[in-house]
């Protein structure tokens, strides 16, 4: 199997590291993680700032712009799914949450979190932590889908006058 460095360009590696950061990092740190020289990392990081993917903090560290990522996500949801698919996903999420409630005999995610304080074995704790994490993701997804559906018509209207466009359909 090809290694990461063999199978990707320096630019791809910098972009991969920089767009998956969960807190601000220096160009030096990104260069180390992406296996590129400092000036190479700096050049591509500044390009990502220029294109709006990243923000720079006052101390000169880089971090993904969460607002840009959020609106990109809404755009992708709207342009790559019809309304029925999004509503279907909401129904699937509701089913998933119902099944966690039944499986763990709780009424809410908070109640499942509180159950971690009880006398459980390590396997049960691991299992419940995983369910809590998935539950949390599903709740966040549900909110994002609801936001996408609320602006769905407005956004799709914007593209109505434009002939078929691969760029729009793949949603960046």
């Amino acid at each position, binding site marked *: 199997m090809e290694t990461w460095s063999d199978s990707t360009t320096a630019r791809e590696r910098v972009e991969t590291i920089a767009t*998956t950061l969960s807190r601000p990092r220096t160009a030096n740190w990104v260069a180390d993680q992406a296996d590129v020289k400092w000036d190479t990392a700096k050049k591509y990081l500044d390009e990502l700032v220029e294109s709006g993917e990243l923000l720079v903090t006052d101390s000169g560290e880089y971090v993904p712009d969460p607002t840009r990522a959020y609106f990109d996500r809404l755009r992708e949801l709207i342009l790559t799914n019809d309304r029925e698919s999004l509503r279907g996903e909401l129904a699937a999420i509701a089913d998933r949450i119902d099944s966690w409630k039944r499986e763990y005999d709780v009424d809410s995610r908070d109640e499942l979190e509180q159950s971690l304080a009880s006398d459980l074995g390590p396997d049960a*704790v691991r299992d419940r932590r995983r369910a809590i994490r998935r539950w949390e*993701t599903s709740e966040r997804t549900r909110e994002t889908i609801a936001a996408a559906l609320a602006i769905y018509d407005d956004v799709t209207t914007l593209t109505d006058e434009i002939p078929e466009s691969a760029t729009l359909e793949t949603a960046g």
Partner: protein
Amino acid sequence: MGPILGVWSPSERNLLERVHDRLVRTAGCERVRYVPSRIDANEVVCAVDPTVFLGRSSDGSARLRVEFDLTGDRPHYWIQWWEPELEHGFGWHCDETEPEYGPVHFQVEYPDGSTERESAPTVEDEQPYRTFERRFGAIESRLDDLDW
């Protein structure tokens, strides 16, 4: 390492998308998909043809699962290889469930249901995608080392 600069952190989703794309581009990794769904993804799963993936003959098939959790004080991850016909597998688990083995443990599961764990080498302050690449690249050597 909680949410920063806003209410919504895109990192976990972006990580899964990068892993998904990496697996799609890797020979031998087939039917790469998000679980439970593309929109509500928590992990990336693929079927592996070991003969193609390893570049040498191999019995049976395998599955690879990759999951991240960035919500706590430090990143957690689970990278697991499983061979269903032979009912054995292994994985790197970075969580707090086996503290006696340190921050990351390597876990081997045998057909008789038994499990062996050992401390896995870790790199302090490593980016999760970088960790994924390192573990992904180590699968072949771990397979060579294992005496199932």
